[in-house]
């Protein structure tokens, strides 16, 4: 990104030229990839021209003024369709920008388009989009991951230099891993959720996707910070892109939880992660075997909470004020017909599950129990950070799977096996590419740190990027 910024700064290129180049790439790639739901060619060029004008007048909003970005289609953009990959919101144009979008505009980033996702971010493959699957740029027969599959694929295929995604249980990290790019799930509360269409408010976070660790850090610095419109946003100090120091790894204590290297882990994934850990060790890091035993319960806990919260958050799509409405003789029938017509099967499945776990007769056994387990998981995670600085695991058990390979929802849910823990405990986690398997599919390594330790996370990620690719 520094190169693009330098070119703009030294007048070697205009924003209009850069945006045009990405639009050409989009035109070329989209027929195969389908990473975008909406490409805003006109809007992006208009914003690019404004950026060029600002720069010519010496009023650039930031070093990145004029560098375009793609935004996941569950993040509100004023006047630009925000469908959440749902039929229900096919024609929904928000009246306002999400705070993160506002942050991008404040930095002068033209929004080039809205990327594909699993409907309402419910999924791990972008197959559950009402607008078709997003294919993996490294192998078009495979999924790009999800739910931020569109963002990861767009960045991987050079359709956008960077993108925003959202991560509720792994939805940034898993597709980043599948597509060979970097993706960060920030600390809960580090980035505003205002204007981000909720899946599960206690778990959702917006985060950056980019091709390098540094670009990811730069994008994170643009969106991080408190927002008075989001009561869950934190007053943490502003994030600064760290200085890259290769010596820093000396003495760094890296926790390696054995539970993440057991049964079900693809051998090539394991080899790549182990190799990377060895590399870090050779540079002076100390590997500490640790246990995160509660991860065994992470998926069940995650699913219980996410479906419960989602069933409530998605209840507002009733056809009264916006979105799909199927007329009926009475309001209850209108609600159910509109929802039946507007929602896809995975969304319906999760709403049913969530309604069930919150119902009076099952609340205690499911929702309340899951909250208790969540507390235990959080404790387990925080205890590990008293011993080690960061925890490193594979991002996903396997590389990108084939489109249509996971017919069983339970199998799909297991894609989040290594990632959900960070959401449940609110800690930041990043996925960084760590090589490819024998089929040429990208592999990802996950680094986790304690709350608001993004700076540390990026420093370690930077070392991984140097040493393991």
């Amino acid at each position, binding site marked *: 990104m520094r190169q693009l910024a330098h070119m703009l700064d030294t007048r070697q290129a205009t924003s209009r030229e850069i945006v045009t180049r990405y639009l050409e790439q989009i035109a070329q790639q989209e027929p195969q990839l389908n990473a975008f739901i909406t490409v805003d060619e006109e809007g992006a060029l208009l914003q690019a021209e404004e950026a060029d004008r600002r720069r010519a007048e010496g009023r650039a909003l930031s070093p990145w003024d004029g560098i375009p970005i793609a935004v996941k289609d569950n993040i509100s953009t004023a006047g630009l369709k925000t469908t959440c990959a749902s039929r229900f919101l096919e024609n*929904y144009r928000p009246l306002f920008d999400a705070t993160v979008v506002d942050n991008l505009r404040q930095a002068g980033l033209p929004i080039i388009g809205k990327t594909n996702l699993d409907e309402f971010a419910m999924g791990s493959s972008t197959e559950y989009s009402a607008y078709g699957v997003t294919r993996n740029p490294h192998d078009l027969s495979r999924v790009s991951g999800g739910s931020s599959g569109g963002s990861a694929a767009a960045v991987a295929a050079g359709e956008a230099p960077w993108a925003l995604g959202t991560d509720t249980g792994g939805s940034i990290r898993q597709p980043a891993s599948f597509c060979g790019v970097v993706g960060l799930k920030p600390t809960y509360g580090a980035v505003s959720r*205002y204007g981000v269409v*909720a899946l599960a408010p206690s778990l959702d976070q917006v985060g950056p996707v980019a091709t390098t660790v540094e670009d990811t850090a730069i994008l994170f610095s643009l969106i991080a910070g408190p927002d008075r*419109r*989001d009561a869950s946003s934190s007053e943490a100090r502003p994030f600064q892109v760290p200085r890259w120091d290769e010596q820093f790894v000396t003495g760094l204590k890296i926790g390696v939880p054995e539970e993440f290297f057991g049964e079900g882990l693809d051998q090539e994934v394991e080899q790549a992660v182990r190799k990377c850990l060895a590399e870090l060790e050779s540079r002076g890091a100390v590997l500490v075997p640790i246990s995160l035993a509660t991860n065994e319960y992470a998926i069940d806990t995650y699913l219980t909470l996410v479906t419960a919260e989602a*069933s409530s958050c998605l209840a*507002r799509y009733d056809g009264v004020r916006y979105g799909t409405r199927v007329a009926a003789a*009475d309001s209850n029938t209108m609600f159910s017909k509109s929802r039946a017509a507007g929602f896809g099967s995975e969304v319906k499945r999760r709403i049913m599950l969530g309604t069930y776990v919150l119902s*009076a007769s099952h609340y205690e056994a499911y929702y309340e129990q899951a909250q208790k387990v969540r507390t235990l998981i959080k404790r387990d995670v925080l205890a590990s950070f008293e011993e080690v600085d960061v925890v490193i695991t594979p991002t996903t058990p396997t590389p990108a799977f084939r489109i249509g390979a996971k017919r069983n929802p339970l199998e799909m849910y297991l894609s989040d096996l290594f990632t959900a823990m960070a959401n449940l405990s609110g800690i930041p986690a990043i996925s960084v590419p760590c090589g490819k398997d024998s089929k040429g599919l990208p592999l990802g390594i996950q680094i986790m740190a304690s709350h608001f330790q993004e700076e540390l996370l990026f420093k370690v990620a930077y070392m991984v990027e140097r040493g393991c690719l």
Partner: protein
Amino acid sequence: MTNFDTVIGLEIHVALLTESKFLCSCKTSFGAPPNSQCCPVCLGLPGTLPLINEKAVEYGAKAGLALGCEIHYFSRFDRKNYFYPDLPKAYQITQDAFPLCTNGFLEYYVDDQLFRTEITRIHLEEEAGKLIHSGQSIVDSEYSLVDYNRAGIPLIEIVTAPDIHHPKQARLFLEQLRLLMRYIGVSDTKMEEGSLRCDANISLKPKGSSVLGTKVEIKNLNSFRALERALEYEELRQSQVLSGGGVVRQESRTWDERAGKTMSMRSKGDAPDYRIFPEPDLPPLNLDPVWVELIAANVPELPLARLRRLERDYGLSRYDATFLVNYPEFCELFFQVAERGLGYEDVVNFLMGDYARLAREKGHLSAERISELLTLVDEGTISQGQAKEVLSSLFSSGLSPREIVQERGLEVVDDPGRLEPVIREVLAANPDLVRRLQDGETKLYSFFVGQVMRATQGKADPEVVHKLLRGELGK
């Protein structure tokens, strides 16, 4: 009826008088054009998030303090999920497991007897929008429109213990509660505008039994009268069911004002499962004890304390004191006028008389004007009758009472030297009547007093006239 004890508990919703809504910054004024006071947040648009209005929490705590509640420094918000067209998010943000206030009470008089009702809890929640049906109700309407101006206005829900035993007691409790809310200034509590709403739970049990009967919830009580009438109806209905060997069904019933009866709405089995769970978009409330102390310090004198003070320090009757307590602006005037050394009872009588009617139409006079007027009567400058005349012109003219008296030449004439010639003239003009009076028809005295008053344009002091007449006729 005599075989049963009635048990009543109330759930009262009070709209708080904050300038902006509970979870966004929209205005709350009543009567604005439909959907002119809403924003993405209170419309529940995708991605919007709630923010707590601190003023609403303050008012909620103030209500709790005025009702003697325990204020919880820690309280939490929950979601109550249900579908209805007036509920934008399809859930209501409320407080379920950890309410703001618990364990309070309210004291009030029923026929001179002091009653006390326990307040179980008070919690904060948001209001829904308003449906406007093309027909009578949502069921028989061709279409219904939604106005979201009301959606998101802060409410407190006040829940009483089931320790009210008569329909009238329930009404008087609610009236006292309304007065209290107005005293502390947290709500305008207008039942007709919906800023005070009440649902009632009522059950009957055999006299003396400690086991509660099956309760019925009554909704759609839009006035104090409706509350009392609905409870009376339901008391009778349930006692007839029970006396006939029947069983009262646990259900919600709606009050039909025109028919004067309650009608079944839904039974317990049909009650929705609200799937209540902690609100993930809002952190719990953690109140600063010092902040709560400051609110407590701002709770003004409450109605019952004022009643007792008026009785004790001013020697007023319960009736007079109650009038003043019920009408705080009158009470304020009373205190100001009474301070100027006028008779307390005279002041109350004045305020409760013609003044009350005129003030309600035209607004209040200043304490200064009132005390001047009362002083004029007190010192005998004008009569009670003249005072009435001065009073009505005070509401329209900018003159002071003394100036009006002067301008109109109003004064009491009690000088016998000026009155006697008039009396003689009147007697001379009615010789027949004078004879009849002298023959013992004494009621004619008032006729002659009236004639003298007339001849003096009402200025004559009637008592002096009466005395002089007696003297004249006794000759």
